[in-house]
């Protein structure tokens, strides 16, 4: 009994081989480890310290206790930005996932030249964060933009609605831009769809299942691990959204697109309240963690792993 569970003493050669393997492994991840330690954890800890200070980015940080955190509660723009960010995340993430899944279903088939289409649909994601796209977007949705041009043709009367400039629609223009970047989730969906054994569908067809039944009873449950992954990544990325809002609207009109990350940037780099910005970053980390944990906890109930 004990002899069976006890570890077999390693020969000298085996031990050496093992150590060498470990060393090689460590060597391979050493650039990443180095990066994590130096470029991520040190700045993170420093920002935690700064969040308890008053710091204008130039002079020396002065100890400020919990005041930065307390000030948040009295900051009207802060609360506005929290509300707007939630709105952004909760509308964008389901929309983007549906778009990604929809396109993935079409592109998962094996037609000729499908690789080309997959590439084409992925291109927007490659360009996603780029300044050029943001500028194109503001032109498309501006007063003289293409959207108004098309609407004018369709409606037969001149449209001069400024989609990114009006408080009612500004955030939705940004959400639409976010949706358009469905490429990376789409690719993951495509590979997920290809993992589903064809035999399930064949069996369902023989039993006379309708397309909707096949989708809801086979495709969706089989995809849940992939959906789960995309959901978590989507939520985290949406909370961090920044460049679109900075370039297209700069938080305007009247802070209606003041996403959380943009407000952090403004506090830190435009208003020179680096301590306050650091405190806000930690609050953002907290919010993202809470949502991620929530999704992870709930996943037991809806994510099916094939055993």
């Amino acid at each position: 009994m004990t002899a069976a569970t006890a570890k077999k003493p390693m020969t000298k050669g085996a031990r050496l081989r093992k150590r060498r393997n470990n060393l090689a492994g460590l060597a391979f991840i050493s650039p990443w480890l180095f990066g994590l330690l130096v470029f991520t954890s040190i700045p993170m800890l420093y920002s935690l310290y700064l969040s308890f200070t008053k710091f204008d980015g130039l002079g020396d940080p002065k100890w400020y206790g919990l005041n930065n955190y307390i000030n948040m509660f009295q900051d009207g723009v802060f609360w506005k930005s929290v509300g707007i960010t939630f709105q952004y995340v909760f509308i964008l993430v389901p929309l983007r996932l549906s778009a990604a899944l929809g396109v993935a279903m079409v592109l998962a088939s094996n037609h000729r030249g499908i690789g080309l289409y997959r590439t084409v649909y992925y291109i927007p994601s490659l360009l996603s964060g780029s300044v050029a796209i943001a500028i194109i977007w503001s032109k498309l949705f501006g007063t003289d933009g293409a959207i108004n041009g098309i609407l004018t043709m369709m409606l037969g009367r001149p449209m001069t609605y400024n989609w990114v400039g009006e408080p009612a629609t500004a955030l939705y223009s940004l959400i639409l831009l976010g949706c358009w970047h469905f490429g990376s989730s789409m690719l993951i969906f495509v590979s997920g769809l290809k993992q589903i054994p064809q035999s399930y569908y064949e069996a369902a067809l023989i039993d006379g299942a309708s397309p909707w039944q096949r989708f809801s009873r086979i495709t969706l449950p089989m995809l849940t691990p992939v959906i789960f992954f995309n959901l978590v990544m989507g939520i985290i990325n949406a909370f961090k959204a920044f460049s679109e809002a900075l370039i297209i609207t700069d938080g305007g009109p009247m802070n209606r697109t003041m996403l959380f990350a943009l407000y952090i940037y403004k506090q830190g780099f435009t208003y020179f309240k680096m301590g306050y910005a650091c405190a806000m970053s930690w609050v953002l980390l907290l919010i993202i963690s809470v949502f991620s944990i929530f999704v992870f906890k709930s996943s037991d109930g809806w994510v099916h792993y094939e055993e």
Partner: protein
Amino acid sequence: MKKLCTVLMAVLLAALVLTTAMAADEPMRMTWWGSESSNKIYLGVSDMFSQELGIEVENEYLSWDDYWTKLNTLAAANDLPDSLRMDLAYIKSYVDKGLLMDLTELVEKGLIDLSDVPESAISGGMFDGGLYAINAGSNSIGMLYNVKMITDAGMEVPGHELTWAEFEQFVLDFYAKTGIYGSDLWGLRDYNGTFRAYVRSNGGQLYNEAQDNLGFEQQILVDYLNSIKRLHDAGAVQNVSEITVDVGRENQPYSKGQAASITTTTDSGTTYYSMVKDTFGPSVLRIIPGSAENKGMWVKPSQFMAIAKDAEHVEEAAAYINYWTNSESCNEFISGRRGVPISNKMASFVGSKLDEASKMTFDYMVEMAAYASELYDPDPIAHSEVDAEFSTTFQSVLFGEMTPEEGAKHFFEFAAKVLGE
């Protein structure tokens, strides 16, 4: 294992070689903020400077906001460029933090020749007895009017003595006659320029002396917002939704001949002038309406050239300031587009060679001096946050979400809180 070691060594070595190669023989670093048109001028001067004097220059330029972000970061990292541009709003804190070099010695050594520069033009860069920057040009703001559009409408181009009420009437009348905007909201929404002049003309300053609160009556803001709202609701300026998102100067109504006037700094005034001249005719600068009686205008040093305390290329950076101040070829190239040269010799040299746009600003700077009073104190650090809230309030009022009274009350509460911190 051995192989791995060799690879690691090689990588390390390569990294070492790369960094040393980059460190050796660095050119002089120069930085500024600017719009597209002013960047062209700076780049041109850099090129001429490095060609004529054989000094290699590395240029770095950014927009106003990004510039200060970057410069503060570099200052914190103790890595400021050799030669840099300062603004009145920040120079005091840079001097206080010991980031700038006292230029006195360089002047005494003759590296920067100020013999043709009057004392009054130098004193702007003096702080606590040291000379920390040379101001190579001054600017102001004004209301730019499109002469041809206004005369075509059968109206008279307003003069310097126009009151604000008369200006409001002018905008309404022009719109009624032509259907073209009488003024450009991009100018009227400007807290820093237009509204500052409005406040000063009504006997206040943006900030009080202690800089812990605003320095004017709430009613002044109520009146201003009411006036703009009347123009906006009459359609005599563009809809507020057009100014919530930055469109670039070339897309503003004034630049496209869709508005008869706009407030602008004199530097940008020449840019506007050149943009509209060929298609829509010449422009002319006047003081901000209503500023005549109380002398609400000001002249502001706009071209502070400084050298970093720890600069590696001190002599080169000094030569650059000297080049800008005293070189004929440099000043001929700039031809007043960055303000009147401070050297008397250069001013009269350039004065004879001006193009139309620069001549307009040259003449304006002379005329407006009669309506200018003492320059305001450098703005407090919370200025940019107060400025941002001003835009929000301004837009909320025009969108009809707040009345002018509510807007003013909200803005005053916000400013008191932020400035008092």
